[in-house]
């Protein structure tokens, strides 16, 4: 006990000395100037300046209270400065450690740097402000994360410019969301909140760190919550809205839940002309288009007076179409336009400056498409831009869908998508996912004299469900889906430029997508949109299995050294790479392209817009390697004209047999009635190009058709150092009815045989190769040429190792391309490539050595090629090269 008392005594003495020392230090000026408000242990709380009693010195002389110069450098106002011993210290920036920041309640937050600040103040000019200082990108590479956790509860707040964010596949999915994402999770609950200003999200401030301010802007608010019910079921709810916001308005006006507000530009001038356009929703059939029986305009002014056009003799200018008994018709590419001109002298209704809203009532039928525009709904050149109001369901031609179509005019202000999900896993052996979403698109009629504008809303719906069960050896899968043609996850952006104008046609600058098109599932969306850093220039889903952003059909292509020949046509490389025609897989939409390689320009919804249908298949494993599947698929276009009904049988066999090799079999038999066009934008590489996307039209080759697709591949590996690969693909289309543009029977037969054997000859390694490629093709379209051709190629590759890291390689390739001929000796189609021979000789000297931490590869060589053609002059090409590559690994 005494020991502890002694220790405590020493502590007390020490503490007293410390406090005395502190007091002595403070006395240096504190005694003279009173209580300290700044300096020393600085308190940055916002308390305001106080009263310094020690400064109550009734003297005429004036000493200022020591502040920055004293606290930083001990310089006193009254002292002579002599730097002979203590040398002068230059001023150091007081902001070196940043500024002082306070929170909403005035509590001091920190001394540091402002990184990100988004605020919206209303009502005021330029009230929407986002500041991303340079440090946001320099310190944090455009991502900052705040998180916390306790027990089962976790949350993270992420602010970033390229956040991979998905709520559900039909509501919000972006590879590069630019905004704020707040995620929460607990054992049974999950939640996400999204906020962004997509119209001006990503501008990093310049040197001055000036915030980006806007009066009109488009904001995004979204969220999703998931709750687990029991052990197997999850219920989810999703809400996403992007809405126009104007900070001149009071807070309660134009909330995201009431359809947003008109921008300053949208509301700047009254509408003078409204144009309604009616056309044929299925123009390709040339008949049964829009039928307009009657039209009426109803105008309501700000005082609540309602005027019908017919009562004041206000008739639109009707143009286009043709008159039939009792109605005006627009078939094929014809269009009926009705122009309502509020500036026309004959117009006797409310002045356009006091019009509150305008409603149209049309008696209409058949396969119509109704669009509308006005002199305030234009593109950059002030040309009116039509937006779709309504499309008829199906392709009605007999007037059986006659209705009164009632719609309001307005400028788009908001797009809302909300819905629910239900997910069950292993519930009675079944996996289940269902999603139902509603899309609401708001429009408001502009009137500069009004603060709160009347809105109208268009509804559309989408749903999907997937049900599956695997109970070996049986399995089943059911999917149902429907998505209205006007279901939309895009919204217009306001304020991307200095003014709040919107070019309703410019997708690159004025459209924001909740669900991006990203068919290759990389970090860049496939389309170009505002605020998106880069456009994806290489979209070839499925063709890049090694994820190097280079098509696997042209693997040796780089930006530094472009390669203009696909590998299957390039000497030596053609041994390993086969043509895309030899790929096989499932083509559920019967457009001739395997589904997993398809690229389009649509949002990545799991199912396409305007489609409704189901797909059911059941199957069994006959043996573990063999699977038999029987299915039925039926879908139709909701507003368009087309169906796809298909019954299919599929058999797959995949067995790796030790001592023999791997055998793969695929058989797919379909009876299809498909009249739905599924056009694509596919990556193709014509000769002498690096390849690029090309629009590909669906030939509708399966309108009523038996389709058989068979594939066999055997990789023979029984004999060491000998590889033999055989691929056979047979695909046939048998038309059940005569089609004017299609062949009755079209087919593709492709056979590839290739073999290589490696043996040593002294120190040299020799590898002879042989590849044979046979193609017989009768395309489905009559206008495309049939072909039947054979390519035989022999290779001889010899490698001579020299010293430690040097190899000399000699290569010889002999190739013969021949078209099969008819009985008269004439090629099947003279438009195709003529018969040819090719001889390629190459020699390469390779060195691989370490240099400055890199592994240096230097190749020197020569390649010579001579081609002889049946009808064309011979062509001889040669290449001499010395190339060095620096790599980081072997």
């Amino acid at each position: 006990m005494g020991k502890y008392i002694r220790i405590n005594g020493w502590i007390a003495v020490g503490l007293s000395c410390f406090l005395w020392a502190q007091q002595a230090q403070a006395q240096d000026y504190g005694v003279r100037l009173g209580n300290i408000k700044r300096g020393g242990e600085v308190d940055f709380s916002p308390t305001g300046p106080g009263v310094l009693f020690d400064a109550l010195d009734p003297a005429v002389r004036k000493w200022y209270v020591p502040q920055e110069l004293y606290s930083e450098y001990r310089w006193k106002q009254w002292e002579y400065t002599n730097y002979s011993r203590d040398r002068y210290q230059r001023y150091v920036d007081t902001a070196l450690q940043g500024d002082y920041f306070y929170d909403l309640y005035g509590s001091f937050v920190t001394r540091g740097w402002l990184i990100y600040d988004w605020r919206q103040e209303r009502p005021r000019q330029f009230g929407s402000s986002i500041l991303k200082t340079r440090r946001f990108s320099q310190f944090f590479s455009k991502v900052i994360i705040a998180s916390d956790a306790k027990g089962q509860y976790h949350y993270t707040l992420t602010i970033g410019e390229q956040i991979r964010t998905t709520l559900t596949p039909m509501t919000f999915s972006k590879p590069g969301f630019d905004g704020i994402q707040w995620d929460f999770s607990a054992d049974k609950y999950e939640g996400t909140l999204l906020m962004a200003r997509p119209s001006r999200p990503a501008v990093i401030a310049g040197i001055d760190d000036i915030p980006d301010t806007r009066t009109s802007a488009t904001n995004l608010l979204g969220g999703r919550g998931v709750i687990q019910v029991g052990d197997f079921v999850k219920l989810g709810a999703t809400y996403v809205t992007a809405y126009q916001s104007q900070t001149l308005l009071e807070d309660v006006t134009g909330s995201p839940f009431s359809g947003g507000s008109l921008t300053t530009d949208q509301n700047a001038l009254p509408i003078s002309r409204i144009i309604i356009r009616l056309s044929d929703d299925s123009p390709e059939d040339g008949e049964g288009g829009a039928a307009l029986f009657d039209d009426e305009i109803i105008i309501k002014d700000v005082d609540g007076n309602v005027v019908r056009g017919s009562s004041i003799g206000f008739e639109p200018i009707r143009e286009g179409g043709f008159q039939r008994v009792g109605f005006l018709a627009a078939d094929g590419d014809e269009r009926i336009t009705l122009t309502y001109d509020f500036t026309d002298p004959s117009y006797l209704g409310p002045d356009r400056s006091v019009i509150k809203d305008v409603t149209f009532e049309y008696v209409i039928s058949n396969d119509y498409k109704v669009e509308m525009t006005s002199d305030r709904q234009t593109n950059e050149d002030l040309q009116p831009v039509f937006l779709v109001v309504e499309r008829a369901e199906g392709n009605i031609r007999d007037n059986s869908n006659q209705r009164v179509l009632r719609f309001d005019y307005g400028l788009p202000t908001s797009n809302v998508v909300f819905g629910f999900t239900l997910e069950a896993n292993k519930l009675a052996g079944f996996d289940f996912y269902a999603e139902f979403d509603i899309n609401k698109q708001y429009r408001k009629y502009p009137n500069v004299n009004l603060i709160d504008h009347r809105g109208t809303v268009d509804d559309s719906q989408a749903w999907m469900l997937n049900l599956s069960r695997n109970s070996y050896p049986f399995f089943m899968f059911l999917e149902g889906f429907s998505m209205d043609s006007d279901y939309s996850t895009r919204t217009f952006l306001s304020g991307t430029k200095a003014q709040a104008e919107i070019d309703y046609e410019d997708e690159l600058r004025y459209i924001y997508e909740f669900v991006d098109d990203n068919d290759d599932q990389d970090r860049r969306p496939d389309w170009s949109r505002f605020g998106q850093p880069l456009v994806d220039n290489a979209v070839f889903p499925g063709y890049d299995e090694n994820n190097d952003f280079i098509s696997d059909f042209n693997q040796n292509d780089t930006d530094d050294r472009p390669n203009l020949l696909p590998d299957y046509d390039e000497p030596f490389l053609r041994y390993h790479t086969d043509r895309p025609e030899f790929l096989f897989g499932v083509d559920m939409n019967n457009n001739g392209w395997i589904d997993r390689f398809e690229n389009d320009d649509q949002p990545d919804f799991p199912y396409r817009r305007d489609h409704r249908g189901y797909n059911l298949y059941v199957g069994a494993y006959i043996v573990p390697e063999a699977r038999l599947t029987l299915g039925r698929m039926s879908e139709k276009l909701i507003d368009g004209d087309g169906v796809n009904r298909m019954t299919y049988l599929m058999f797959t066999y995949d067995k790796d047999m030790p001592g023999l090799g791997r055998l793969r079999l695929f058989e797919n038999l379909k009876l299809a009635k498909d009249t739905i066009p599924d056009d694509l934008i596919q990556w193709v590489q014509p000769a002498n190009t690096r390849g690029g996307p090309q629009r590909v039209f669906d030939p509708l080759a399966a309108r009523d058709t038996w389709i058989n697709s068979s594939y066999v591949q055997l990789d023979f590996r029984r004999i060491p150092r000998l590889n033999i690969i055989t691929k056979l693909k047979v695909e046939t289309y048998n038309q059940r009815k005569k089609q004017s543009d299609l062949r009755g029977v079209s087919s593709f037969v492709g056979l590839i045989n290739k073999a290589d054997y490696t043996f040593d000859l002294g120190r040299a390694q020799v590898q002879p190769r042989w590849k044979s490629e046979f193609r017989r093709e009768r395309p489905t379209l009559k206008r495309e040429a049939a072909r039947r051709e054979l390519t035989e190629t022999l290779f001889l590759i010899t490698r001579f190792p020299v010293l430690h890291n040097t190899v000399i390689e000699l290569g010889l390739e002999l190739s013969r391309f021949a078209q099969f001929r008819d009985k008269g000796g004439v090629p099947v189609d003279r438009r195709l490539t003529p018969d040819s021979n090719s001889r390629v000789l190459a020699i390469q000297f390779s060195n691989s050595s370490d240099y400055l931490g890199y592994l240096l590869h230097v190749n020197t060589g020569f390649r010579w090629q001579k081609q002889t053609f049946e009808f064309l002059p011979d062509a001889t090409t040669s290449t001499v090269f010395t190339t060095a590559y620096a790599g980081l690994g072997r």
Partner: protein
Amino acid sequence: MADSAGVRQRLMILLVGIAALTLSLPCLAQDAETFSVGGNGQAWRDVGNAPGGVIDFVDRLTEVTDIAGESVFVNAPDSLRGWISPLRLRPDVNISLGVLDRGGSIDVNLASDEVDQDVLEGVINGNHKVAFDRKLIPGRTIVNNGVKIEIDLGARFGVNRIIFYPRMTESFPFDNDFLRGYELSLNDGLVLTPSGAPDFGPPVVRDADNRDVRVETVIEPQFVRFIEVKSTTFVGFEIDEIEIYGTGFVPNARYLSEILDFDDGVVWGAVSWTEISTGDPTSSSVEVRFRSGRDPTPDVYFRILTVGSRVTGRTRLDASGDTLTQASYEKLLRQGQRVEIDVDADNWGTWQLVGNGEDLVLPAPRQFLQFRIDFTNQSLAAGRAITDFSFQFGRNPPADRIVAEVGPPLVEAGVSTVFTYIAQVFNKTGRGGFDRFEIETPARVTAVRSVEIQDDQSNRLSGAEFGDLSAPMPLTVGDFSVVAVEDDHFALGIPRIVADGTRLKIVFETAAFRYGTRFRGRAFSDPSALPLLTEGGDATPELVTNAQLVRVSVGSSVAGPLEIEPGVFTPNGDGVNEEAQIAFTVLHLLDPSPVAIQILDLAGRRVRRLMTGSVVNGRFPLTWDGLSDSGELVPPGVYMVAFEIRSDRGTERRLGSVAVVY
């Protein structure tokens, strides 16, 4: 080869119809005249023109040949001359040479002060002295990467070859200034942006390292309207010509007549023509439309007024204060000014589609008439040609005009309704008047209650009451008679009406089955003359509809009520209550749809198929005599009457019951 010959062998003559037309018009007007174009009539070129320049005017169809010199219309009758058909491209004809004449254009995405439009148009004029020059020369700073030349062909063509090159003559040896990198994009004229600009997809050809002085791109024949050539290098270049070649028939072609002046108001009769097709007949079509008017200018031309880029209004006057005409409008258009066209709706009616052999249903009498013929081909190999185009007209209408209206304006669909129809005669010029009047009806009228002639103050001058129409025709009361009652009209004999302002009031009973049912009148000065058609308007203060159209309640069902009378019948041969009268009603339909009326027993088995076929709208009576399909009397009991109609929207059913007792 045999296949294509077979296609040509399927060539079909659709109608050679004048004789048939004569038969269908037994009372062809004595004063009716015929206006003929093609064949033995006037020359097509004298009567109209081809906007876009894609109509072929050929004397004999055998002149239209393919590349082998064989006639495309192989079965064309050599006796008929003077044909028009969509232009069929020859492989050696450069389409681009006619771009400007067709109303097409050439443009480049450069500032106007950087481009001489005449030089740019030199790219498509065949002149090898003028070229679009983007060569890099000292003292000239130009950016070539991204320069796009866009050509609007003015119409859609089946294009299969595009060629461009620099000047390569001795005087202009610029072989080395070819385009070193380019993209070639096409648009078919149908895929457009919302404002109507062509929406070019990915390029069809992209060559970043072009080494050909003369770039010749061969593509699958496809319909093209817009072509874009884009430079993808910074290297200087020039383009002397862009040549475009194609094949097959153009997909859309229009023949548009001049405004035909008939000097005085005339009425219109039937139209007919001879038509022939080649290739798949389902891939081509011809549509003929007419419109009539009171003055020679159906279109109103406007000039858009702007301040800066903002539109401030539009005017019908040019800068000199003169009213815009078609010529001055097109001049402004060529000058790049913004212009618009509206239809003169006050003086001209809308275009009306007419079939071969059908009557022209146009506002009349009118002095001016215009027609147009639209050819549509969905395949390059399919096309049509027409000749012997003619229509009847009469120069002596019974009055200047007759305005009519009908009430009530809104009725319940399919329900028998009493209609009041009043027509007022305008005859200030003292034409001969009429004594026969017909009214088109959607169904047979069940009663003509009264016919009355009133003066211009609506005072009754004379009249008659008729009641139901069970008596044999003609049914005469005084000077009035019901001459005929048909399913689609009824005819009245009346004292001749001549005086200006006279009104004819007719009260009758029938049903309307679809929205926009038209009750149009036809006035005949004598039975052999072409009738004067009534037009909708304000004919009387008694009615407020001011239209000949009657609206019905817009409904969602096309299957109307199923009526069965009596509910119990006794087909026992005693002559009393032997049959059940069944009537079904179809509403709203415009085109025939298949219907089936069947008698079913209570187990749902079919006992008798009463009717199968296709009907449009209307009320259709049937009779069931109690017999089954095998001709035997059915056992006594309750039977179901099933009415089923299959419209484009789906199948609808109505069920009723009837009892058979003995």
